[in-house]
């Protein structure tokens, strides 16, 4: 994730720097490389030592290892529940806030950041106290908790996406052409929000695949819980498993960035990657002469 973010910043800064004198520019470039290098070392060393510790053989053993299958399946199921619920709840909500309650945006930002600010341990104890009995014994409860945990990320992705195009005008154009609300949401808003929705999805999935505290307090053996449980038995295998998880998440993130920039190239408009929106002013800068 770190490399993606810095590569992106490098991208967006190019036009701003075009006018700088060459000397300062070179110094700036050197700085950028230094920062990249430090980041690479910082993130690279643990990865490298993990790889070395696990060894190649451990990777081949992960899949068949005891209870790995059920733990991974549970995590995938939770990821699915959390993603679907998050999108179904957050897409219409963020569109509504954007159009009808633009002044409450700050408030919404504050509200949606709460799950990050409040320690998970506090959240989970509260939830376990408050949840109805029929939910407590099922992993669905954990799915619901993950909806709450992913809210800050999902809301920010969607909000960035909504700010990347003129939602209000498009919605009104669609209405005036005879489309009601559901059709407008489905045919106009969501297609232009695709990258943001994908970001929200990947962030939610990544969060579910990595969350430990809630799952273990809830007594479910999700993938991260499994990694910790089996670290005592077989260190190399669990490290290999976590490296695999990291790799899969990283692939997903790369996928988003690629698809995002491809759709930005095709439809013009803004390029949305996770929380950032880079406006490409394609249509505005084109010549008016015909």
């Amino acid at each position, binding site marked *: 994730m770190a490399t993606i973010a810095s590569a992106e910043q490098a991208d967006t800064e190019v036009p701003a720097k075009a006018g700088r004198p060459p000397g300062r520019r070179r110094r700036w470039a050197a700085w950028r490389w230094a920062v990249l290098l430090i980041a690479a070392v910082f993130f690279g060393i643990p990865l490298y030592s993990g790889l070395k510790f696990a060894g190649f053989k451990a990777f081949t053993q992960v899949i068949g290892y005891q209870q790995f299958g059920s733990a991974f399946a549970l995590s995938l199921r939770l990821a699915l529940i959390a993603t679907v619920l998050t999108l179904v709840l957050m897409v219409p909500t963020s569109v509504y806030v954007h159009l009808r309650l633009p002044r409450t945006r700050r408030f919404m930002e504050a509200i949606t950041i709460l799950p990050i600010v409040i320690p998970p341990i506090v959240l989970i104890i509260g939830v376990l106290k408050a949840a109805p009995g029929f939910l407590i014994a099922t992993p669905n409860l954990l799915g619901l908790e993950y909806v709450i945990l992913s809210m800050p990320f999902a809301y920010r992705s969607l909000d960035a996406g909504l700010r990347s*195009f*003129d939602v209000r*005008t*498009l919605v*009104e*154009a*669609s*209405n*005036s*052409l*005879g*489309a*009601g609300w559901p*059709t407008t949401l489905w*045919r*106009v808003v969501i*297609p*232009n929000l695709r990258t943001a929705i994908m970001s929200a999805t990947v962030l939610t999935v990544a969060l579910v695949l990595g969350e430990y505290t809630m799952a273990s307090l809830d007594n479910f053996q999700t993938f991260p819980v499994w990694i910790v449980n089996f670290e005592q038995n077989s260190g190399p295998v669990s490290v290999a498993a976590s490296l695999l998880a990291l790799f899969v998440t990283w692939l997903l993130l790369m996928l988003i960035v690629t698809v995002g920039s491809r759709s930005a190239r*095709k*439809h*013009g*408009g803004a390029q949305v990657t996770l929380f950032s929106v880079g406006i490409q002013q*394609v*249509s*505005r800068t*084109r*010549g*008016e*002469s*015909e």
Partner: protein
Amino acid sequence: MTTNMAAGTQAGVTGRRAEGAGTTLRMRAVSRSFGAVRALDNLSLEVAPGELVALLGPSGCGKTTALRIVAGFEYADSGTVTVDGKDISPVPAAKRDMGMVFQSYSLFPNMTAQDNVGFGLRMRKQSASSRSKRAAELLDMVGLSAQARQYPHQLSGGQQQRVALARALAIEPSVLLLDEPLSALDAKVRLQLREQIRSLQQRLGTTTLFVTHDQEEALSISDRVGVMKDGRLEQIATPAELYERPATTFVAEFVGTMNRIPGSYQGMDGVMVLGSVVPVHGGRPDDLAGEIDVLVRPEGLTIQATPGGNGIVTERTFLGSLTRITVLLSGDVSVKVDKTSAAATDLVPGASVQVGVVGGEPVGVTARH
């Protein structure tokens, strides 16, 4: 562009809506406030079938609000909007059957030009084949057949607004609403597109409300122009009437170029201005007396290069057959005078000139500034 339009005419894409079967749009005493801001104040307006009425006024005078109330995106605090006599306030925007072209680019970025134009037909459950046929006709009509498969970001601003126009017309709207559709475009494209809008509108006979802050645009394109100020309609009349017989000082000064010259009121005879006595528009104003301001158009003034005249030329602007001369008169009054370019060769900055009013032509008067 013009050739393409001719092609469109030959292809016979003319109004499916029969001539004379247009819609009457009427706003009656419509008011709307946003907090303390009175955006619309008792606005009444009628657009006859097939007529193009422009709402003209400075930014913030309530034009967009009026249009949005008609379109159904905004509600009125009081007053009614009727279409062919039926009150449409309970009808949601999606069911009003009005075509709208927005000030900002409003094409759906995820659809090609053709799909944008076909969108309204899709909402009306037309088959894919009849949709694409109709979309192709309309794109031809606005001269963009070649761009049918392009996405909005691949089109220039002018092209995007033409697709937006085609999209609005595709649904054969009862009323066409245009909110400053040309203001984001550069001058040359603006001129072409406004002629195209007018000729399409006349051919299709669509009742149209056109909002703009550009008086030249309003005067050149409309059957009638409604001049707005602070949410109120100051005057609604044909362009010629507005120009020649403005009802208020605001209209007089907002429409066309108007000079304001100090004069004195002489009772029944008229006003004394620049050394001559001239009649007053619309008879004698009751509440005026003594020192007043006289309103005269640039073509209502005479100018002659004379040593020791009453003014000094400060600027000249070549406008083609006419040249506009700016003259500084005594008392720090600056006026603009039009003169045929051939006769204006010696009216250069610094020249001393004598400025007068054309005798016998009635002028407007207003209270002294």
